[in-house]
């Protein structure tokens, strides 16, 4: 116990020191970002992941020019016997084989990957922006404001999400943008709770209390002192959200909002592929799953690298 307290007070002194240092650094803001960049590019895993992600994006952009079939055309001649005639093949022009209806999986995967990347990133972005701010404010202000804000999140978590989607669909014209509203409506909730938890504990740290004593405004404290310390957990949770949102999208589309045939998404391709695994068309699962995996792995390492690079404690 004594040791803990001792180390805590040491920690506080140290943090005060770093705090001063970082304030000094903030003046030379440019070099801060420069440092971060150097650190990021020094991280092999992160750079490798970035390369993979760029390749995936490049594939989405350039891939269509190598396609023989469009993503909606049905290969009437081969559709009756997908398990043999629909295998991945260079000759037929179906590099990734056919889907269960006889459409070119190469073109469909390209289109799906693009859609899902967008969905995943938008979901994560909304979570980061709204969830972080909401959670940080709630945790920092505390008291009844915190109570009210968090009970609101409790309610929003428990409200049957499905009806919100259905109502969005009925009230507005279905469009791709509505999908983002649907995704955004849910993605930030868990993030706000995590951020608020961290903020609760940051709020009482010496450096925050020092800033308060120095008359720094609440909002500035949140932006300057709280948020940088939240970065690690925010980045990691955001990368966890990407696969989750990609899968949530397939449920939203199931209800009828969002991606409509003939367009598709990775979540839907995976679930279609999973349905037919036992029927000798395993590529229908493996192809979209590969792209899903490439995306989430690369985002994970990029996130990890970003976290390391921006970690204020390492400065």
């Amino acid at each position: 116990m004594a040791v803990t307290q001792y180390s805590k007070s040491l920690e506080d002194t140290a943090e005060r020191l770093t705090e001063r240092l970082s304030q000094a650094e903030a003046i030379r803001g440019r070099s801060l970002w420069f440092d971060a960049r150097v650190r990021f590019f020094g991280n092999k895993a992160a750079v490798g992941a970035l390369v993979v992600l760029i390749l995936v994006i490049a594939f989405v952009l350039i891939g269509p020019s190598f396609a023989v079939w469009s993503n909606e055309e049905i290969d009437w001649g081969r559709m009756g016997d997908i398990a043999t005639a629909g295998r991945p093949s260079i000759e037929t022009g179906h590099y990734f084989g056919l889907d269960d209806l006889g459409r070119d999986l190469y073109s469909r995967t390209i289109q799906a990957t693009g859609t899902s990347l967008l969905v995943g990133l938008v979901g994560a972005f909304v979570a980061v922006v709204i969830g972080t701010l909401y959670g940080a404010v709630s945790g920092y202000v505390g008291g009844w404001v915190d109570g009210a804000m968090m009970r609101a999140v409790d309610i929003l978590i428990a409200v049957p999400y499905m009806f919100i989607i259905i109502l969005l669909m009925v009230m507005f014209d279905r469009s791709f943008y509505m999908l983002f509203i649907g995704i955004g409506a849910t993605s930030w909730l868990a993030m706000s709770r995590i951020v608020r938890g961290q903020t609760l504990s940051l709020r009482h740290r010496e450096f925050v209390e020092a800033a308060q004593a120095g008359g720094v405004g609440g909002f500035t404290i949140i932006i300057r002192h709280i948020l940088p310390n939240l970065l690690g957990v925010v980045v990691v949770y955001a990368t966890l959200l990407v696969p989750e949102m990609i899968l949530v999208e397939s449920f939203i589309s199931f209800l009828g909002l969002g991606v409509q045939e003939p367009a598709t998404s990775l979540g839907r391709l995976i679930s279609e592929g999973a349905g037919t695994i036992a029927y000798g068309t395993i590529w229908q699962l493996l192809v979209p799953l590969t792209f899903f995996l490439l995306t989430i792995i690369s985002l994970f390492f990029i996130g990890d690298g970003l976290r390391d690079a921006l970690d204020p404690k390492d400065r």
Partner: protein
Amino acid sequence: MMISARLTIAGLLASTFLASPVLAAGTHPVTGEPLADDQTFTYRVLDEHSSVDPQVVEDVSGSEIVRDLFEGLYNQDADGNLVPGVATSYETNDTKDVYTFHLRPEARWSNGDPVVAGDFVYAWRRLVDPELASPYAWFGELMALENAKAIIAGEMPVDQLGVKAVDDHTLEVHLSQSIPYFPLMTTHASTFPAPRKVIEKYGAEWTKPGNIVSNGAYVLTEHVPQERSVRERNPMYWDNEHTIIDKVVALVINDENVALTRYLAGELDRTEVPAGQYPRLKKEYPDEAISFPRLCNYYYTFNLSPSGQEAVKDVRVRQALSLAVDRKIITENILAGGQPEAYTFTPAATAGFTVPDVPAASMTQAERDAKAKELMAEAGYGPDQPLSVNLIYNTSEAHEKIAVALGQMWKQKLGVQATIANMEWKTFLEERGNQNFDLARGAWCGDYNEASTFLDLMTTDSGYNDGKFSNAEVDALMNEAKTADDPQPLYTKVEQIIAEQAPIIPIYHYAGVYMLDTDVGNWPVNNVEQNWYSKDLYKKAE
């Protein structure tokens, strides 16, 4: 709670065992095949049943259970013909609006009470009683029971219903109009008798295992919602000695692919084949994969109401869209389960119905496509003025495949831009019911085996006419058909009008496509309504 439930089941099992005759092991009395020792039939159902109350049940899987638990006046045999159930015979008058049924005196409820005419009177009154508010109350109206309509509307007391017990074994039914096929309707679950004493004793709880008393070949012994329900031999059933299957287990498995895996693992005796998998399974398991016609159709309906777009009100456009649909691709490449292609509304499998000749049926697809292009051009649509339509369907993999294929066919052949939109079921019903579409998916399974169950949907007042097709001639013909001695010419005429006017695009007629274990005997593949009775099945020794 679990324990007491098990005890009751154990008790029932014991009594069943003591009372059951020695048929279980041995040979089949008619075919002489050796029978398996374990006479348990296990099958997959897609969804939890809505109820096992005969007057309340409204879904297929519930009706299957109710047909085993309860027995109505008549049953169907393996070919769908009427065979005596609780009734042994009936008489009718010349105008066919009074029917008298003679009930068998040996019929018993599972608690030993005799089944009497009063049980039917009670049940039928229950069906139309506003207090029970059965969703199937309209079946009472459909049967044209005297005063049913007024009773449902709350304008008359229930005891005014046109059904009475002359004595314990004679049931007299008065109809408000002549219905020649009335006895056919007594195989429907909502007409089955109900045990008054038990219902009054337990109220809404009466259908729970342990409480329920039934007069069919089986009693409900276990029900775990969303998981399984079990029915076991009812030793009090009047024909118990001819019953071979001891126990029937229905397992709820939502995912058809998992169901198939579990079938292949030997956990099920019967499951449905997922769309497109039949040819492969037939090759691998030639004796187990079966396909036979069903009494259902599948079509797209045009929106002919004022809210529909002008283009689809042009009969040439409707004809063209219908002709351009290559049904063979849908039935052979997408569904691939032996479904017949459809050019008319009523399935050929319908009893006493001959499919009329319509021009489209005898053309080749190339001829149809050529004709479709011609009609579209005539209607003024082409590359300069492309037609766009929206098409709605409820979310499901098979529906989606068909919708996508239709869109592609129209796009490639006619240059039509089809926007297809899936919806969750209730939203779909609302949107379709409110005519927010150009084309909407529709499907119908016959309530009884007669063409009017389908063709009625094309009349102006039908509750299922979401396309708002209205044709005075069709209405008149269908009205006339109700009392006609031979309605076939009238039906033919109606089908011809439908073919000419094309208010709908018939796509295919259903087939029952199953994996059925080879040791299951006597599955009624010829019963197009798939009204099957576990008491008629048996399990062969392997």
